[in-house]
């Protein structure tokens, strides 16, 4: 055991006491978070600007556009401002009412082309063309039905091209512009209100009153009964789940990074030592298994050190901003538990691969099956977040190779992770890790002394099962 620690200590020092490590430990979060932060910040900056949309009202009398203007002003003044901070939470919409061209097909098309040019020149972010029949309630309804694909009630009527249906309004923009998408969504509600309930014919007071309504539905978290006071308390909803999301994803990304940093270099390290003939010298003093475990433990030390640095930093930040509850100690303990096991699991397999090759190019083919369970969780993040207790999420978190990252994510999301799931998956991971170490150890022992081309999977299997 002492020898294992000697090797582990050397491995740890050789990795940690280098400039590369110190630089990397500082640089890594900057790079990872930096890109995220930069994109968030620039998005916010962009959002501060007001967005201009052109409105072409083709209804007779053009009464819808001014109503829209009223609605927009009210929105800019009140709805788009964050009640807590007083800051603008979404950009101002600026409506420019453009007189409609004549109603010939060419003129209509020409105006659309011109307005599209203006969008390209970034004078406006999009334009809303309100169809000439938009205010005609009956026509609107049947037009909408037509757009869904039901056959027209009166077969004599010409089938109208859905997008050119005069009962519909069209909003044209560059689909990637998120501000424009926001406007589109907002305008859906307003146009529906205006056209379906004939608001153009209603007096001004009524109009203002209708537009003055607060959003009828608020979103909250769950209600629980406070033990001390007996009162029912509502969780805050949005805020908390967003934070939980960040924590969950953050921890998972951290684990991913640590597993990559802690276990993949082992392949390189073992292979290099084998190629440079250092291994045989060491094997005169230690057993192959001791060598493998020593290197594993050393890298676990490295990963734990790095995680400790990052987690401590995160804890400071989180407590400073008062979000301490989002990073509970139990979660951190689970993180450590899964991290150590994950590194042992993957590290022993990577060491085994390194030991069985003789050349830098050979490991590629063998690496793939080991890398797959590390990458799958990343691909499934979106799915898990949307549906943390769904069948796939549960299955993946109970499958030992992917348990560390998936289970951690689920636990961070405070979903309905049952206790039995936690226990079963923990046992599963431990057993699987032991299995990996055993398999890895046998392959390592045979491979480290072997020269010649890399073995096929069949041969590897032989190594494990014989003797």
């Amino acid at each position, binding site marked *: 055991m002492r020898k294992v620690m*000697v090797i582990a200590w050397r491995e740890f020092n050789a990795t940690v006491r280098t400039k590369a490590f110190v630089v990397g430990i500082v640089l890594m979060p900057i790079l990872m978070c930096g890109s995220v932060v930069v994109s968030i910040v620039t998005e916010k900056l962009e959002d501060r600007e007001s967005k201009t949309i052109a409105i072409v009202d083709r209804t007779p009398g053009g009464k819808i556009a001014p109503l829209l203007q009223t609605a927009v002003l009210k929105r800019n003044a009140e709805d788009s401002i964050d009640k807590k901070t007083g800051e603008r939470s979404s950009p101002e919409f600026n409506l420019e009412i453009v007189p409609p061209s004549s109603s010939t097909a060419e003129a209509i098309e020409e105006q659309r082309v011109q307005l599209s040019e203006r969008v390209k020149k970034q004078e406006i972010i999009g334009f809303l063309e309100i169809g000439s029949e938009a205010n005609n309630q009956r026509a609107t309804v049947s037009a909408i039905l037509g757009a869904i694909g039901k056959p027209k009630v009166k077969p004599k009527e010409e089938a109208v091209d859905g997008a050119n249906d005069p009962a519909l309004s069209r909003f044209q923009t560059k689909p990637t512009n998120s501000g424009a998408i926001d406007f589109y969504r907002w305008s859906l509600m307003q146009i529906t209100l205006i056209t379906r309930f004939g608001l153009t014919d209603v007096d001004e007071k009524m109009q203002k009153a209708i537009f003055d309504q607060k959003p009828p539905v608020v979103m909250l978290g769950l209600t629980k009964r406070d033990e001390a006071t007996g009162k029912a308390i509502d969780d805050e909803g949005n805020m908390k789940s967003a934070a939980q999301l960040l924590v969950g994803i953050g921890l998972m990304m951290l684990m991913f990074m640590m597993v990559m940093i802690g276990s993949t270099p082992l392949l390189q390290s073992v292979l290099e030592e084998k190629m440079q003939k*250092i291994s*045989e*010298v060491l094997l*005169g*003093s*230690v057993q192959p298994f001791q060598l493998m475990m020593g290197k594993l433990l050393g890298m676990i030390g490295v990963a734990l050190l790095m995680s400790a640095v990052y987690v401590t930093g995160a804890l400071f930040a989180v407590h400073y901003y008062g979000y301490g509850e989002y990073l509970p100690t139990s979660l951190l303990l689970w993180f450590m538990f899964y991290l150590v096991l994950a590194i042992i699991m993957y590290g022993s397999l990577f060491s085994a691969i390194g030991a069985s090759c003789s050349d830098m190019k050979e490991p590629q083919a063998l690496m793939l099956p080991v890398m797959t369970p590390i990458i799958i969780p990343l691909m499934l993040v979106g799915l898990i977040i949307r549906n943390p207790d769904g069948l796939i999420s549960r299955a993946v978190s109970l499958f030992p190779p992917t348990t560390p990252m998936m289970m951690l994510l689920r636990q961070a999301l405070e979903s309905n992770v049952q206790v039995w799931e936690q226990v079963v998956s923990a046992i599963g991971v431990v057993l699987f890790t032991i299995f990996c170490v055993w398999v890895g150890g046998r392959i390592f022992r045979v491979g480290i002394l072997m020269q010649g081309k890399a073995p096929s999977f069949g041969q590897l299997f032989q190594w494990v099962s014989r003797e």
Partner: protein
Amino acid sequence: MNAVELVEVNKAFSNVQAVRNLSLTVPEGCVYGFIGPNGSGKSTTLRMIMRIIYPDSGTVRVLGAEKLGAANDLVGYLPEERSTYKKMKVREVLCFHAELKGLRRPAVLVDEWLERLGLIDWRDKKVESLSKGMAQKVQFISAVVSKPKLLLLDEPFSGLDPVNNEAIRNAVLELHRTGTTIIFSTHDMRTAEVMCDYIFMIYRGDKVLDGTLESIQNQYGTDVIRVRLEGNSGGVNALERVRDVVGVKDLGHFKELRISSGSDTQVLLQRLCELGRVMHFEVSRPSLHDIFVRIANPTAEEADATRNLAVVGGE
């Protein structure tokens, strides 16, 4: 107690029989030389003694024990192909190796050895900054610093210039004086002749010689006469026709004569005087190289390889 005992050991690697029915005994405290050309099975045998690989059949007993693994702290090992962590400092890496052998506080012993081999000024330099010879010396120290009772050195002198060669040789002899059993393998017959108490020769997996140099020479070698006749009288053909001369080797000015066993060297001298003026007449025992060539009947290349080394080794 014998340091090493091998009994009927066999080892094959994918259809190639590396070692065949090998038995040998290494007494404690001696210097034992393993000689033989490349690929003869020397390294395999050493690895089996180290228990890094296991024989297919037969027993290996080291320091009286049969079951010890490679991590036997009483045995020092220097493999043929060797290297160490280049980015570590000399002293650090040596302490590392010493600790792996079970030494608790190796720094003092490490410094002693560095001093002895003239490397003390380099102790805080990284291994990669050393020349090849210095690096070899560091490797050597890593094998001996833990005061092993048995020392296995696979080609310890390869790649060393004469000065460093000498330094290692002296170190080995000193260890011998303190009672360490030393087995070293080499394909330099010259060094083996000079340093070893016992010599063990292996060729293509089979044991070919085993014993003291003297017993080997007595058993397998007939005397060899080195002669130089003035003006090269007669040349090789004439010499071959002299009675009792069994073979002639042409070394240029000198000729080496092999004579039939039992013949009288003085009578031969008289016969040679009849051929011409004898300028040089030397009775020498056969060299290990010659014995090897004679008994093992190797291919011409292998014979040349060993001979060239014998010449380089310092004729």
